[in-house]
């Protein structure tokens, strides 16, 4: 498995674990997760990413993920 595929597995697990509760209050927001720490919810990707850098530093890995009921599939034509 490539490094990119292995990256952020734990964070994605945390997301899946909490997704149902987050859908009620944070639908469409971007959540920031590093390891098992949830750093907050933000209106857009840019704010979420900057918050992640501020909280965890530039050398840390963190997930920025939008809260959706179903994962969107983006089309490239």
């Amino acid at each position, binding site marked *: 498995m490539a490094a990119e595929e292995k990256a952020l597995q734990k964070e994605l697990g945390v997301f899946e674990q909490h997704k149902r509760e987050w859908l009620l209050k944070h639908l469409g927001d971007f959540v920031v997760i590093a390891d098992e720490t949830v750093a907050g919810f933000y209106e857009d990707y840019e704010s979420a*990413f900057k918050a992640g*850098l501020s909280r965890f*530093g*530039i050398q840390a890995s963190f997930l*920025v993920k939008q809260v959706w009921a179903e994962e969107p*599939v*983006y089309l*490239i*034509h």
Partner: protein
Amino acid sequence: MKLPFTPTTLFEQGPHLEILICATRIEVIEGRAVGLEFPEMSVRALVDTGASLTIINPQIAMNCKLKQTGRQKINAVGGEAGEFPEYAAAISFPGSQLPSLDTTRVVACPIIRQPFFSCLIGRDILRKWLFTYDGRSGEVEIGA
């Protein structure tokens, strides 16, 4: 920003421009303070109204040391389909007045059907622009 094409080159190649891709400004500034370098790359980008997200070739993410922030499901007609890594990047437009994008997400997916380009500018960036395409004259104009 006016892009200089003839009707033929616009028809054959599509609307494209040179862009600079690098890690976000905060990463570059804070990285310098601790001895980390984030290289910048100049690449040719196609403005692609058929792409919902902005796509880069995976090598760019590696070379520029972009930070991965997740994965996205991509369905590419006639090419790769599946989950691909998503990164945070800064994109600027040298020689133009177009505002730089300090933090934008890009997805690293091999651009197979457009080997002439290393980036597809998708509708996530287009939603910030006024994009005018005149196929008769070859004039393309981008405003923010």
